């Protein structure tokens, strides 16, 4: 859980949320989420019909894995907002690092909050997801 004294603008927290993403994990996420779009799990369809180099991850898997970094950082049931943009696709074999940076600390006594920017990058330092989060923190 977030220590209020570490809430300095520019402070960062990062987690490797997946290493060598497997096609099996894409199948696992398809089953858990109910999104069976074959573009994510069916190599034959993805390459021969949709003309992609391979299957690729659901955007929401990347966002879900990135959310794990956020809840590890700010604690459970602390998020007020979490959003972002899917910038590049995530492919089997990718390793992702999710990083949060403190951009603002709202010290309002009744509801202290922290505003974070969120960036998830792959092993080539390409941004795959870019967003923000707002979280409740304990009294400063």
């Amino acid at each position, binding site marked *: 859980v977030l220590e209020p004294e570490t809430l300095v603008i520019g402070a960062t927290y990062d987690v490797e949320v997946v290493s060598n993403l497997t096609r099996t994990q894409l199948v696992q996420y398809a089953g858990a989420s109910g999104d069976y779009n074959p573009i994510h799990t069916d190599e034959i369809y993805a390459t021969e019909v949709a003309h992609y180099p391979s299957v690729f991850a659901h955007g929401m898997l990347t966002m879900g894995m990135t959310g*794990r970094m956020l809840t590890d950082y700010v604690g459970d049931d602390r998020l007020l907002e979490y959003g972002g943009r899917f910038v590049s696709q995530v492919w089997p074999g990718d390793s992702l690092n999710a990083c949060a940076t403190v951009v603002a600390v709202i010290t309002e006594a009744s509801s202290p909050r922290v505003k974070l920017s969120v960036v998830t990058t792959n092993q080539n330092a390409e941004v795959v997801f870019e967003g923000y989060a707002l979280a409740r923190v304990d009294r400063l």
Partner: protein
Amino acid sequence: MLFARAIGDPNPIYYDPGYAEQTQIGGIIAPPTFVQVQAHYDPEHRMRPRPGVPWVGSGRESSGVLGSTTPRSGGTGLHAEQHFRYHQALRPGDILHSQRSEGKTWTKTGRRGGKLLFADEVVSYTNQRSELVVAVRSVRVRTERPVSA
């Protein structure tokens, strides 16, 4: 727990009642992006194979719907943005109702000159006490050609 496993999150707050009871939260909760599972509860979700309905993915052929519709030129729908606003934790036993509203649509020219068609929608989830749990805005984009690696 299935969902938490799929996103690779080992946090016991999502599956261990003994652990969860000892926390400030007092019980198991769902991960922040969990409401994506609404696809399971949509009787007509397009991206789930159904008995007797031709499926877009491969079987004997590389796609079960080739020939019955215009072959796809590679243009496809992609998820562009997702925004969650949380109002309270989602807990086991909660019953959610969703209310969907279509938002704006707009077009842009992509990096490689193809036309991109954007559309957004907001889905609000309320629980069995008619309290707002989470509101989700998503933006989808349709491209004219596949996105290159």
